[in-house]
């Protein structure tokens, strides 16, 4: 199964389970969780089921296209369901079957792993799912997002697409993966991997980035004052990515690092609060009538 077929299989499987197939976000993110379709939608009482591929940028993981497993930008397949369904483990295992993984032929285990993203004030409990000893999915019940306790609880499933593909295609290097017949992962991503690595580690303009961070932060705060949550959140993502670029460049000293992370976290918290407030003002549109009166 090539990468494209995998994505199609997962999309069609989760669409079938009632997930809206939204699309990758158009602002840089480090993980599918940071896409507002997860980060913001996990907040508040409204039900929400969505799935999407998220190209996730991690500048410090760049390896100039030389490391077979680590890349500047990898791909996550992200599923978010709120409230978490009762049989979510079974549904998830069904998705592995959809990828041609027969659980009777393999060793599939749920191994404790409690997930935390302090910069985004998010934490959850769950597992990493092991397929014959390899972690293929992060399976998390959110408990906190943006510093707020969530209720109801969302379940987040994050598949590492490259890893799963390496396994399914029995390849040793991501660059050898078949994306679609005649086109490899390397054909598509090797050059950008090299160039992004070179940029992140050697060429980025630190002064400009520091300036951008401050400017984005300021703009996020200003926009959030106006209760424009989604617009404000985009600037939080920009702050976060800018920080990651500076970090990869080793431009931020150990002592300053915590301060920058705290600034991002504060913004994320403000967004979370503002989002819930705005949804409430709008009458939580995604709640059905019956659910509203129960509340």
């Amino acid at each position: 199964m090539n990468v494209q077929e995998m994505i199609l299989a997962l999309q069609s499987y989760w669409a079938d389970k009632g997930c809206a197939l939204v699309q990758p976000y158009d602002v840089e993110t480090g993980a599918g969780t940071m896409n507002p379709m997860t980060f913001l939608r996990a907040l508040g009482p409204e039900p929400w089921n969505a799935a999407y591929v998220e190209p996730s940028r991690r500048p410090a993981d760049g390896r100039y296209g030389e490391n077979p497993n680590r890349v500047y930008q990898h791909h996550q397949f992200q599923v978010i369901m709120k409230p978490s369904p009762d049989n979510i483990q079974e549904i998830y295992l069904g998705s592995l079957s959809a990828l041609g993984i027969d659980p009777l032929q393999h060793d599939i285990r749920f191994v404790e792993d409690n997930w935390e993203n302090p910069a985004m004030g998010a934490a959850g409990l769950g597992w990493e799912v092991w397929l014959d000893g390899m972690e293929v999915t992060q399976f998390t019940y959110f408990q906190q997002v943006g510093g707020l306790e969530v209720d109801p609880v969302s379940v987040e499933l994050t598949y590492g697409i490259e890893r799963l593909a390496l396994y399914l295609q029995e390849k040793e290097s991501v660059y050898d993966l078949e994306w679609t017949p005649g086109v490899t992962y390397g054909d598509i991503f090797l050059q950008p991997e090299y160039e992004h690595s070179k940029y992140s580690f050697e060429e980025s303009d630190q002064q400009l980035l520091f300036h951008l961070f401050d400017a984005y932060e300021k703009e996020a705060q200003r926009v959030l004052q106006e209760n424009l949550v989604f617009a404000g959140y985009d600037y939080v993502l920009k702050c976060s990515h800018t920080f990651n670029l500076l970090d990869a460049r080793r431009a931020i000293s150990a002592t300053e690092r915590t301060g920058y992370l705290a600034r991002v976290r504060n913004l994320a918290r403000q967004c979370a609060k503002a989002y819930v407030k705005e949804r409430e003002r709008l009458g939580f549109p995604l709640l059905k009538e019956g659910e509203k009166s129960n509340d």
Partner: protein
Amino acid sequence: MTKRDLLLEIGVEEIPARFVDNGVAQLAEKVTDWLTAQRISFDSYRTFATPRRLAVIVENVSDRQPDLEEEVRGPAKRIAMDEEGNWTRAAEGFARKQGLTTAELKLAEYKGETYVFAYKRSSGELTYNLLLKELPSLFGSLHFPHGMRWGSGRTRFIRPVRWLTCLWGDEPIPVEWAGKRATNKTYGHRFLGQEIMLTSPNDYLEALREEWVIADVTERKQMIRDQLTALEEEHQFRIPVEEDLLNEITHLVEYPTSLVGRFQEEFLTLPKEVLITTMREHQRYFPVEGEDGRLLPYFVTVRNGDATATDLVRKGNEKVLQARLSDARFFYEEDQKLSIDEAVARLDQVIFHDELGSIGDRTQRIVFIARELAQLLELDEVTRAKVERAAKICKFDLSTQMVDEFPELEGVMGEEYARQKGEDPEVALAVREHLLPRFPGDSLPTGVVGAVIGLADKMDTIASFFAIGIVPTGSQDPYGLRRRAAGILQILLDQDWRKVSLKQLILLSLKSLEEKDLLQRSRESLVADLESFFMPRMKAILQDEEIRYDVIDAVLAVGIHYPHWVVEKARVLAAQMEEEAFKSVAEGLIRATNLAQKAEEDRQVDPELLTEEAEQNLLQKIEETKEMVHRCQEERDAAGLYDALAQLTPTIHQFFDDVMVMVEEEEIRANRLALLREVSTLANQFADFDKLVFS
């Protein structure tokens, strides 16, 4: 009365392995305690647990509570009845309070007088009804350190609850909890098994076995052991079984099947610890070794399932291990390119704590404390030089890629790399050993250099967090300060270092913090807090020696500056308490000490005012004892110190027999009290004898 077996099973999404044993033990304890409190008899119980279930079967539970007969005594008849034999208001009040009418009251004798009695009888409830009503709160009372919520429910549990099975004999109890209603159904293995309808708790174990679940923990563990033994015989190698890993694996599978995989021989050139950590900690594999104890390029993994397609499972696991070991080799080779001094320099960029600066800052403090300690301990020049070097580099491996990737190899990699780079063997050893002990019962530094750095490192961690107001409370001790305090005492005792006091250690570390302006509170209050922080740790050490609690309290009450001295005094005191003569010694000292509390603070004994022979004798004896006490302290001779005090006591008794202390004349009285304070001061060099409990 008939009896039935009771089965309770909580079906859960995969419970983290480390909480399974505790979870099922809690369940059994809560259920049996509750039955006992409800006066419902039962014979015995068994527990069962897998990653997906916590279960208990209680055998021969009686099907109802026994009836309860209660007798309550009321007022005496002469109060409860008037002269005509009518009930008084007192009687009416009593009856009403007991829920009876006066007609139901009875009269009976009690201790020679007639009283009113109320006899109440309540019939016992059916166990079934009580279970139905009470089980939800019983389940809800199970406590886990990391509870969670799921879906839209309000329940908190270790992981989401997916089913409940409650069987009372052949009858299901439809208990409702966590959004589930209990039935007589349970579920087999996630992939291999089916749903099971139970007809009796007796069927539980076998029915699950047929559906590929070994519910008995001991049996499941033994199955793995047997499989490992069989593999050892088949392949002629050894599989050292680490119990913690075996326990963990037992709780990661419902039906175990062990299989052997291999990795490329070239990886055997990596340090053994790297291979073992990768296999054990990251993959939960058992490493394999030959007859000579050398690692072989094999591993054993325990699969959750049967023997279907084991080749596929093996291949998958081999691929994962291969990738991990390739990573490890990459880090190892990268680390080789870094000199130790470069690695040390990088520590300035590794944050230790926001307010406490970098690891580099911390290293400077460790160097300062270690250097001063080496002086105090009068170590020779050569060793002092090694301490200096080891202190400087002790944290260097925190900037290596290997430790970044395998944090549990901190110290281990440090020693390995330090040796490779030609550091002195004692220095290299200290890089690993200064972290010891890492957990209760762990080994202690064997080398002097590691012990010195270990003290400095631990003391700096404790003092620096105290200095910025981060102090362990209750179960919260995120930086392991208690463990480190215990480690300091253990090292001082183990090295038999009698020249270093806790207070010196505390003052040294505060000094190094003060120079960097890191004390957020006054030095005095920090010293006091730190000293009392060590108190419970010292107490635990004495408790481990099985010294009786009152002896412990008595010696701790007079200070713990020299841990060695505290232990020795406690041992001597514990032994002396068994002697017949002890009581008289202690009484004399206690009496003197108690009265001495009334003494004026600045008053010195004036020999001119000592009129009686007994008090003159006491003063003379005190002077003699002072010298002995001083010498024994110098020589750390606890038995000698006790003897000196014991020899003083006949004189004390004679004093109390002959001399009246609290006399009218103020000067005389004050002088005598001052004399007793001298005794008290001597006694307090040993212990607070008043804390001792005499049978």
